[in-house]
């Protein structure tokens, strides 16, 4: 059978190669999905960890177990604690299946009152201290002064007055402490401390001498979960000494330990994280060792955030890739239907000779499985490659070099890949069930029956369009809810994407139906006048709708998907770029540290009034920045209180500007306001006390143009030292958006729900404020014209002290680094390219097959005296009215779907309300790319067909037809 299959495959090698390409793409995309998901999740996790480290300056993945208990006299307390700690270690290791990279164990005796023996007057009074042991202590510290607790012999003896450290020779026990302890307590090296309530065997209180001060050996040593400076109550002794002390001191002893387990987060992946999450969740609900041992970690909250992120990533990936996978399956179905149709005669003959359907299905099943097997073998490494490639996509169809990508082939990769292969086999064998039921008689009798596709007959396009239209309508109604869900961590409803895909498909079909009617109309109008070639080709188009319908639909869907994907990606990226620039206002915003000065003046005989004023730093920064950049200006930004006529006071944001300069420095998207924003700048410049107010204040304060509005330091920030007084402005306009003003802030209410609140803005003339209230601390805004580096060079000079420095590029990079945006770009790029490849192969194959099938017919046309030119003309006409029509339908459907659905889909990426609305961007570059591919496809198609036809020998073809 295998030889038979081999011959069968080779006989139609081109078709089978196309089929194989389809399977390879399917398995590769399927294998790529889990790998890409892992990659994105890992990236999201690592970003989260880095963020935590930056904010908290602590190692993020630490689980701390602690316990405190009393140990009876005579029992070895240190041993008891160690045993308990070791047991905890075992439990933790068992639960997490992973060993920590470091275990830091702190053992302490409960705080006891301590009296310093010498120079008691210097110390800041009696205090409570604890004797502690930290595991592996000596390997992580260095001495800042003095000597180690076990090394007193090496220190010169003498008195403090002689400049050397002296020790009380009677002291048995020694310890080292942190510099913070010395500073807080006033103790010094060499001092002996007496523990009032700890009585040794000799009936004397326990005495411990401080021999040295330690600090961390290396900065950024993860060992220091709590930095040395945090140990302000701990006297560190050696392990041996601790045992000795515990033996020496009589009575019951209360001891405590803390066991910090540090896990290497850099090498944690989805599987480990899931286990961590489950385990920690379990600890949260039922405690560690049923609550016997206390535990704490920040890692759980981080994991919670990660899980939320991972869910979003998974949802986004599936949402983006599901239509893609379906499309590839449809492609496979299409090609295998073509093959089966060509082999239909053979199947019918086999059946007539008594071969059972079962046997035929088995034959094709083995054949398909063979192809699918080869598909998996090639698809798996290709998926790996795709994942690496698209992991490096920075924006749509743009790649950067990221060397540190860890792409791993895991068990789930294999499962996805094989599942895809199984689906492929199913889709390859599926059309057979239909064909295998026919025998040669029913096959012949079927010929020439009317050929109308199901969707056309049952108006499925109209029904689907109505369904997806309804979906759009209901989603549009819930817009606010969707946004708030996304804002609170939920992914986008997958049905939204499904709705968009359905809409795209049904709209394409509907447009096709309408266009077909047009073709029919064109045919009928010219029926009498058409040349024979046109007449024949119109009949061909109109009477083989079913077969052509499929390729037309395929073309429509691929093209509209391509356009839709490109538009989503461009819209997200371009809007993110816009917002990054808009939120900052311009390319770079700097603020120097301004110095506040006080001046006094007498207001009465014994009374002086102190007033404050700011002095601009004398660094010349502004003029230097202005020199290197395209343009620069000073902008005053601060929070203020606002009060309108209604006596309503609310907080808002003040921006005081130099109108002319501001116009040339700040960035604003054209068309955002009802008129060009320069008009507003002009209005503002008309009178010095003029102000522009954000539109949201118009209704809330009940304001109108010409009203006056007061602004002053906000109540929360107000203090007597403020340099700004109350200023009254005249409203000259209302603006919906303004450079640097987002219009909303995200707040979390008492239930922990994140929501958005509007912020008010007031824009005033800086000159006016300066003349009435004196110089105010300003930001420097610069439009760099690409010379960011020059500005950095200036600001990195020693004498320049910046309060902050923001630049739009960095903001943009941060915005684009979010895993959701990255995977969206990666996946959309992949989908777009896959769509183009499928479109190309699908189209060429369809036409080549269609010509092959019609060779006899062309032979007849030629025999009847039609010229080659007429026949090629016929084909061109067919291409125009089938392919070109489908292309136009696809483009229309893609554009309309983009216009309708993208505004909803982008909620997933930008749920926040914002003054700068998300607008639809489409890239002419992408359209040109698609145009080139489509032209290439059509061109090469016609070329190949013409070539095939010109080689055709009429006499031979007719003869072949007879055989």
């Amino acid at each position, binding site marked *: 059978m295998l030889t038979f299959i081999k011959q069968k495959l080779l006989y139609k090698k081109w078709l089978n190669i196309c089929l194989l390409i389809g399977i390879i793409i399917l398995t590769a995309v399927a294998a790529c999905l889990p790998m890409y998901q892992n990659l994105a999740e890992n990236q999201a996790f690592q970003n989260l960890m880095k963020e935590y480290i930056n904010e908290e300056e602590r190692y993020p993945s630490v689980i701390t177990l602690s316990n405190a208990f009393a140990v009876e006299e005579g029992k070895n307390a240190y041993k008891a604690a160690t045993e308990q700690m070791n047991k905890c270690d075992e439990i933790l290791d068992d639960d997490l299946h992973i060993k920590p990279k470091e275990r830091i164990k702190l053992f302490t005796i409960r705080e006891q009152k301590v009296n310093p023996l010498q120079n008691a007057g210097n110390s800041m009074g009696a205090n409570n201290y604890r004797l502690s042991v930290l595991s592996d202590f000596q390997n992580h510290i260095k001495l800042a002064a003095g000597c180690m607790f076990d090394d007193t012999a090496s220190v010169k003896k003498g008195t403090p007055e002689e400049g050397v450290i002296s020790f009380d020779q009677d002291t048995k026990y020694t310890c080292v402490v942190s510099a913070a302890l010395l500073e807080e307590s006033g103790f010094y090296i060499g001092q002996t401390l007496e523990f009032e309530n700890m009585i040794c065997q000799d009936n004397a209180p326990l005495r411990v001498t401080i021999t040295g001060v330690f600090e961390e050996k290396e900065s950024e040593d993860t060992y220091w979960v709590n930095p040395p400076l945090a140990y302000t109550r701990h006297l560190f002794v050696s392990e041996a000494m601790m045992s000795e002390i515990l033996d020496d001191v009589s009575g019951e002893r209360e001891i405590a330990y803390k066991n910090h387990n540090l896990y290497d987060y850099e090498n944690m992946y989805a599987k480990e994280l899931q286990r961590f999450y489950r385990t920690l969740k379990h600890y949260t609900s039922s405690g560690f060792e049923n609550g016997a041992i206390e535990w704490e970690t920040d890692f759980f909250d981080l994991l919670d955030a990660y899980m939320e992120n991972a869910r979003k990533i998974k949802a986004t990936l599936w949402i983006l890739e599901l239509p893609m996978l379906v499309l590839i399956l449809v492609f496979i179905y299409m090609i295998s239907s073509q093959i089966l149709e060509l082999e239909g005669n053979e199947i019918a003959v086999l059946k007539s000779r008594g071969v059972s359907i079962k046997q035929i299905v088995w034959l094709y099943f083995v054949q398909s499985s063979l192809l699918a097997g080869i598909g998996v073998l090639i698809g798996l490494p290709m998926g790996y490659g795709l994942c690496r490639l698209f992991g490096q996509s920075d924006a749509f169809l743009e790649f950067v070099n990221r060397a540190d990508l860890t792409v791993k082939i895991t068990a789930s990769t294999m499962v996805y890949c094989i599942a895809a292969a199984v689906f492929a086999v199913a889709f390859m064998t599926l059309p057979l069930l239909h064909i295998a039921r026919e025998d040669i008689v029913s096959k012949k009798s079927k010929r020439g029956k009317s050929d109308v596709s199901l969707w056309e007959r049952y108006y499925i396009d109209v029904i689907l369009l109505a369904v997806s239209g309804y979906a759009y309508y209901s989603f549009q109604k819930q817009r606010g809810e969707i946004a708030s869900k996304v804002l609170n961590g939920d992914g986008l409803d997958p049905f939204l994407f499904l709705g968009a895909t359905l809409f795209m498909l049904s709209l394409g079909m509907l447009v096709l139906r309408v266009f077909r009617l047009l073709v029919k109309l064109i045919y009928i109008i010219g029926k009498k006048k058409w040349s024979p070639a046109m007449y024949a080709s119109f009949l061909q188009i109109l009477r083989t709708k079913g077969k052509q319908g499929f390729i037309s639909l395929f073309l429509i869907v691929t093209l509209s998907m391509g356009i839709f994907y490109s538009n989503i990606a461009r819209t997200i990226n371009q809007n993110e770029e816009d917002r990054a620039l808009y939120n900052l206002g311009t390319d770079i915003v700097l603020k120097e540290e301004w110095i506040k000065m006080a001046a006094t003046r007498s207001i009465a005989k014994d009374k002086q009034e102190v007033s404050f004023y700011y002095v601009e730093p004398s660094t010349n920064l502004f003029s230097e920045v202005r020199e290197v950049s395209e343009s620069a200006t000073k902008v005053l930004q601060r929070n203020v209180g606002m009060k309108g006529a209604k006596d309503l006071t609310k907080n808002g944001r003040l921006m005081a500007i130099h109108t002319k300069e501001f116009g040339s420095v700040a960035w604003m998207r054209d068309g955002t306001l009802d008129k060009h924003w320069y008009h507003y700048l002009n209005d503002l410049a008309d009178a010095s006390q003029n102000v522009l107010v954000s539109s949201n204040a118009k209704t809330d304060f009940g304001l109108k143009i010409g009203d006056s509005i007061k602004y002053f330091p906000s109540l929360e920030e107000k203090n007597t030292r403020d340099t700004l007084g109350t200023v009254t402005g005249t409203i000259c306009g209302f603006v919906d958006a303004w450079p640097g003003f987002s219009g909303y802030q995200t707040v979390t209410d008492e239930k922990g729900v994140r929501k958005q609140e509007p912020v008010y803005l007031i824009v005033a003339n800086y000159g006016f404020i300066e003349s009435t209230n004196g110089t105010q601390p300003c930001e420097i805004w610069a439009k760099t014209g690409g010379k960011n580096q020059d500005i950095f060079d200036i600001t990195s000079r020693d004498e320049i002290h910046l309060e902050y420095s923001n630049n739009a590029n960095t903001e943009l990079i941060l915005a684009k680094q979010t895993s959701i945006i990255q995977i969206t770009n990666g996946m959309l790029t992949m989908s777009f390219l896959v769509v183009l490849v499928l479109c190309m192969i699908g189209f060429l194959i369809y036409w080549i097959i269609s010509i092959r099938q019609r060779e006899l017919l062309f032979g007849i046309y030629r025999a009847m*005296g039609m010229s080659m030119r007429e026949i090629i003309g016929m084909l061109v006409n067919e291409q125009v009215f089938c392919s070109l029509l489908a292309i136009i339908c696809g483009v229309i459907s893609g554009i309309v779907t983009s216009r309708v659905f993208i505004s909803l889909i982008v909620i997933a990426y930008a749920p926040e309300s914002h003054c700068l609305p998300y607008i639809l961007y489409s890239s002419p570059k992408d359209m040109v790319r698609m145009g080139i591919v489509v032209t290439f496809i059509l061109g090469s198609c016609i070329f190949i067909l013409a070539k095939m036809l010109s080689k055709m020998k009429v006499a031979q073809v007719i003869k072949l037809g007879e055989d």
Partner: protein
Amino acid sequence: MEDFLNVMIETRGVVRSFPVGDGEELVVLKGIDMMIPAGKLTILKGRSGSGKTTLLNILSALDNPTSGLVYMEEREIGQMPEKEKEWIRRKEMGYVFQAVALIPVMKAYENVEFELRLSGYEGNMEERAKECLELVGLKDRMNHMPGELSGGEQQRVAIARAIAHKPKVIFADEPTGALDTNTGLGVIHLFKNLVEKEGVTIVMTTHDTNLMELGDVVYEMEDGQVIG
């Protein structure tokens, strides 16, 4: 002179060979000299592989002889430019093939009408198409698609199409090959009828000895040569 006028097609030393690889040639027609009289039913008979279809293709301007001349009413058509050949095929020739070669996307009527369009028929196309279909007895089924007709019916539509534009010659390659004996006989009678009523010249090939006697002229072929 009268003899010459009655000849529709004449061949002189027609040789047709095909390359079979290794520079060798397979000679299928080995110098054929024959005359096809006008207004008669000429039958080319012979076993399969005797070269009759190759000869028919050359006579009908579908194929070119390797050497030799083919005259159709004084015009040498063997080496004629393709364009002129197309014109002759379109205007002056009609074809009936062994496998039914109707255009599957056209109804019976449209198949006939299409031939009329192609030849630039100047009369009333609709009337002529119906007339031809009536002649082959299929006027009632003119709105059926080819797939809805039986083999014999389809062949009759093909004949109606072949005669529609009133060609000078109709070529038929094994027109009865795919039909049962009775239907085959019916087709031949139809041909006879056409020759008698419309004065068309018909050249057909067959290997069916029962049909031979119905031909006005019969050429027997064997191994690329006319033997009788």
